[in-house]
């Protein structure tokens, strides 16, 4: 029988047979750790492997994004622990000035189609957007990967998700993603690799692909791939890797555990109400819900295009008095482009708070935390109870967040 995308990538990294359900020992092309997990990796390494070399220092990185620059003394200490280790072993650090690690690994051309990339970020599987097998792992796994360059992995089953139909703006990749969270929930692709196909995903930009693939984590999937790739996305990926983009595609006779069809024809904007990313409704049904704050950023919606979409709504308008809109670009490179093209100015003039690149409040970093009773609308990927504080978080796309911040309640651009 032929192989699916995930089976081909794993097969290219192991001498074991990469068939679903089999446990293989797999080579890892890139291993990384963040300012969260990283200090634990250092501690593990110095305890278990003191004095022993890393498998390959040119393939081993630190990326600081969670609390950047450090906002607590503990994080300042933890980041320095990683820097000291990196200096001692000669490793590259993408420090607190650089932004979200997964995005930096992509922009640096380190995460590549058909490669294997691990790190202490549960959204590492976002790299499925460029045909790479990214996987988040805990600090024990990553320590072992630093030392050996390998890990064990149970080859997952694959599920094919066929998206029927197309939709128009202002519906975005985030709305599609939220709708899939509603339909697929946390069961349909749980512990599986998903391959998304259909005209609506084939047309996505790289930013849109990242949005969809990032939230496979919230669907409890191992990873999601989008085998079809539009010209714009291809061009952007090739700009980072400086090589032709040629991801594996599944064989015609590849085996899928299941095929799911989802109708997305004329899909309207969506939003996830607390307390879970799968609690999704058409945004119009939530219209009028009062908000206190907005957040645009995160690995899910932190690309140039996401802020440009928000700026189209915000330009020439003002955020409602008393509403705080926080803007966190994913990376320094995104920030640079926003600056060069005047987007930051549009956002600033509308009244937004613009800060340096990073993860923002997703994991209780700097920006995007809620106090008790506060209602936030966010382009992030999680709204679990208590995650970003004691308030409540709604998830939506950049246009809906921007429009909501102008009106002070959940709304779409059509309400302005």
């Amino acid at each position, binding site marked *: 029988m032929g192989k699916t995308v995930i089976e081909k990538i794993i097969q290219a990294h192991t001498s074991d047979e990469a068939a679903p359900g089999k446990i293989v020992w797999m080579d890892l092309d890139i291993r990384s750790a963040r300012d969260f997990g990283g*200090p634990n990796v250092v501690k593990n390494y110095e305890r278990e492997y003191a004095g022993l070399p890393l498998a390959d220092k040119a393939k081993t990185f630190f990326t600081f994004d969670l609390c950047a620059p450090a906002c607590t003394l503990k994080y300042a200490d*933890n980041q320095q622990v990683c820097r000291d280790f990196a200096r001692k072993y000669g490793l590259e650090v993408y420090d607190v000035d650089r932004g979200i690690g997964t995005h930096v690994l992509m922009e640096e051309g380190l995460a590549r189609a058909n490669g294997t990339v691990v790190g202490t970020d549960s959204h590492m599987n976002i790299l499925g957007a460029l045909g790479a097998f990214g996987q988040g792992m*805990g600090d*024990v796994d990553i320590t*072992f990967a630093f030392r050996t360059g390998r890990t064990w992995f149970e080859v997952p089953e694959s599920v094919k998700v066929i998206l029927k139909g197309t939709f128009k703006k202002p519906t975005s990749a985030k709305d599609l993603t939220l709708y899939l969270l509603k339909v697929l929930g946390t069961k349909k692709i749980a512990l599986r690799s998903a391959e998304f196909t259909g005209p609506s995903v084939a047309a996505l930009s790289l930013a849109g692909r990242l949005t969809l693939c990032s939230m496979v984590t919230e669907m409890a999937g191992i990873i999601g791939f989008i085998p079809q790739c539009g010209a714009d996305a291809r061009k952007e990926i090739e700009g980072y890797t400086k090589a032709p983009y040629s991801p594996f595609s599944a064989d015609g006779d590849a085996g899928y555990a299941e095929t799911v069809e989802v109708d997305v024809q004329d899909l309207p904007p969506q939003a996830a109400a607390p307390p879970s990313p799968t609690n999704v409704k058409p945004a119009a049904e939530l219209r009028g819900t009062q908000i206190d704050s907005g957040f645009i950023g995160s690995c899910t919606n932190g690309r140039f295009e996401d802020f440009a979409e928000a700026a189209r709504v915000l330009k020439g308008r003002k955020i409602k008095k008393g509403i705080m809109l926080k803007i966190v670009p994913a990376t320094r490179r995104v920030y640079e482009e926003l600056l060069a093209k005047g987007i930051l100015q549009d956002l600033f003039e509308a009244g937004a708070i613009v800060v340096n690149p990073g993860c923002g409040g997703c*994991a209780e970093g700097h920006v995007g935390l809620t106090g008790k009773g506060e209602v936030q609308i966010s382009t992030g990927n999680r709204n679990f*109870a208590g*995650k970003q504080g004691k308030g409540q978080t709604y998830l939506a796309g950049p246009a809906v967040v921007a429009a909501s911040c102008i009106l002070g309640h959940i709304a779409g651009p059509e309400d302005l």
Partner: protein
Amino acid sequence: MDTLSHRGRIWVLADKSGKLIEDIDTDQIYHNAFLHITDIAEMGQYALGNLEGWKDFPKKARPGDIIAAGRNFGAGSSRQQAVDCFIALKVAVLLAPSYSSIYFRNAVNSGFPILRCGELGSLAAGRKLENGDEVEVDFLSGKGFNLTKNCAFSVDPMSGVQRDIYHKGNLFAFGRSFGR
């Protein structure tokens, strides 16, 4: 030979109707406010600290206790602390119908017995598994027995790699056993 079975008191993470709580995420298990902690001994006090109804778990837990939870346990973050906090409390076994992939790996790599139990939901709903019951689980045969309710059940036995890592203690020791 290490022990391959365990007997202990069980905590069933269920609502009042006996329905197991599903999708318990890593922020409910170990909140991101404490991610900066790297010393395992400090982590136990925060276990289940953001799970409504279970915030006093660290005070109630005794070494050797077993935890039973609903499907997709450990969703969300890759944080090892969400496993280590239970190790710190000397919780001995974790049972759930399914886990997030990362969480499951983290537990396996730490040599912490984590086992899938497909019938856990029906056991809990049928009151054949309740808080405080004395339960025995064999990691290799997959045989489970509730001594309090005199009721047998089964779990998925440890996989080969899981058993090997468990035998050696953790992934590091396992790696050393074949020269890595």
